[in-house]
């Protein structure tokens, strides 16, 4: 565990010194403050719109951090040969993969906390109330980003950063629309297309499970049971992806 933490801390420190992180955080903050503009054009709905945009900004910019930093995390170590002296130490390769993962998740966690702080302060300033469902929505966004990071780490151990980033981005987009693969119109009945799309439904995580944006914006309470289910779903997917990432990296020559 000490070795995993050492790798995680180092990854955290590396990401903190990465300019990409600050650029993304800047744009996230700009989007949150810019939500006022949309609030103006939606008469009487400005607080709802601001809440909606704040959560969307956390989700999108958090995903961009996970994709851009995560997809190059392991590959960069191989490419820059920093991995040579690390893997020559008495550590298991899975410890390295988990350390890299936890380091990046910690960075995303800090980014989410920062964006939450900015959003809450801004909403308070604008006269909006923040309830439990708002924080439940943020918790599930964090779970979704942890899942996306696991995908990014897996691909980082297998393909180049650009290829990895494209694939994870596609998963992020289609993951928000997996119901489409399941609820096909009747003309798809008994076709190969239905079978293929159903396979996609099970291969790609349903990221809408983590989406409480509309509930948070409208202050509609969500049960603890649902949040627990969503967390369990996210953790199961994350664990499976991390196991695959460890296995992929275990047999790899560097």
């Amino acid at each position: 565990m000490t070795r995993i933490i050492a790798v995680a801390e180092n990854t955290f420190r590396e990401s903190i010194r990465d300019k990409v992180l600050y650029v993304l955080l800047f744009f996230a903050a700009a989007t949150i403050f810019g939500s006022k503009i949309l609030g103006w054009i939606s008469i009487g709905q400005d607080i709802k719109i601001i809440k909606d945009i704040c959560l969307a900004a956390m989700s999108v910019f958090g995903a961009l951090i996970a994709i851009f930093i995560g997809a190059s995390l392991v590959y960069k170590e191989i490419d820059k040969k920093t991995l040579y002296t690390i893997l020559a130490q008495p550590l298991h390769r899975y410890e390295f993969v988990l350390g890299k993962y936890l380091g990046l998740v910690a960075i995303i966690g800090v980014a989410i906390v920062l964006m939450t702080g900015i959003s809450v302060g801004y909403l308070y300033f604008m006269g909006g109330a923040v309830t439990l469902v708002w924080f439940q929505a943020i918790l599930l966004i964090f779970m979704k980003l942890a899942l996306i990071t696991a995908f990014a780490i897996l691909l980082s151990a297998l393909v180049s950063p650009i290829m990895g980033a494209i694939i994870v981005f596609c998963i992020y987009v289609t993951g928000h629309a997996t119901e489409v693969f399941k609820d096909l119109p009747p003309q798809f009945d008994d076709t190969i297309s239905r079978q293929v799309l159903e396979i996609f439904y099970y291969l790609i995580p349903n990221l809408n499970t983590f989406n409480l944006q509309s509930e948070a914006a409208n202050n509609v309470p969500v049960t603890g049971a649902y949040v627990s289910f969503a967390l369990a779903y996210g953790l199961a997917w994350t664990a499976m992806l991390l196991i695959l990432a460890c296995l992929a990296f275990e047999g790899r020559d560097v």
Partner: protein
Amino acid sequence: MTAIVTEGLSKTYKSLGKAPVHSLSDLNLTVEENEVFGFLGRNGAGKTTTIKLLTGLIHPTAGRAALFGTDIITPDARRMVGYMPEQPYFYEYLTPRETIEFYARLRGLTAEEREREWEQISALLDLRDIANRRIRGFSKGMRQRVGFAVALVGDPPLLILDEPMSGLDPLGRRMIRELILQMRDRGKTIFFSSHVLSDVEEICARVGILVSGKLAACDRISALVGDVAKSVEICARGLDSAFIANLGGQVISHEERKEGGHRLVVQDTEAANQLVVEINRAGGTLLSLHPVQESLEDFFTRIQEGAQVALPEEKQPAALAAAEE
């Protein structure tokens, strides 16, 4: 105890649509504890592949190896090794102190041990002045010092150094050479690859030479270069041109020395004796006479040109079994 044993160690790289590349074939090698072993070969001969196999960076296609009796596939084997890759790369945003701290943590050292480790290593490699500067701006020599420092973290009994003198200026090379000898005196085993044959000759007890992924020679340097026929160099003065002209095929080479006199090289000691008699008879003065031995560089060149030298008999399987016991 045996520090390194390899038995039939092989590595073949396969990639889709390309012919397989046999980077290392059937390597049988033993390196004893507290030995300085030089691993030689041209670029692409398989030196780095062997080192990567021994440090667990790549997996063997066939065969096995053990470090101090522990199979290389287990992380415990790497507890025995300090590794410095060719052109060591580290996190550029870290300082030498943070780098040593990081690797010490990977080796499971406690905070107290890490502090002690830094004190010792930084003193040995003169890192204190640059302790808090980021590695990003470091010269090749400074990076090499950090690389050596990382290899020493955790006080491993075996150091594996890949081209440690590559790209260094004479002072840097000397520093590494002295460090290797210092480590040997502290009881460590050093296995290193190099192109700088004069350094190898100076500090190694034994060498192994790889040719196209196969071990072509492995023995003490004196045994390897002693195998070939020696010639004898004779320097004399007071010899006239007629005497020289009459020597004909008796000498291998002849040249006039800048400082006066002649330098004559003959095939063996018998021919040398005969020539000395003739020089005396002709009224010449003998200045010097000494055997010319083949250098490691000559041997290396000869072996690369295809002269296969018989390997000394090494009982690898028995050695491996003994190491495991």
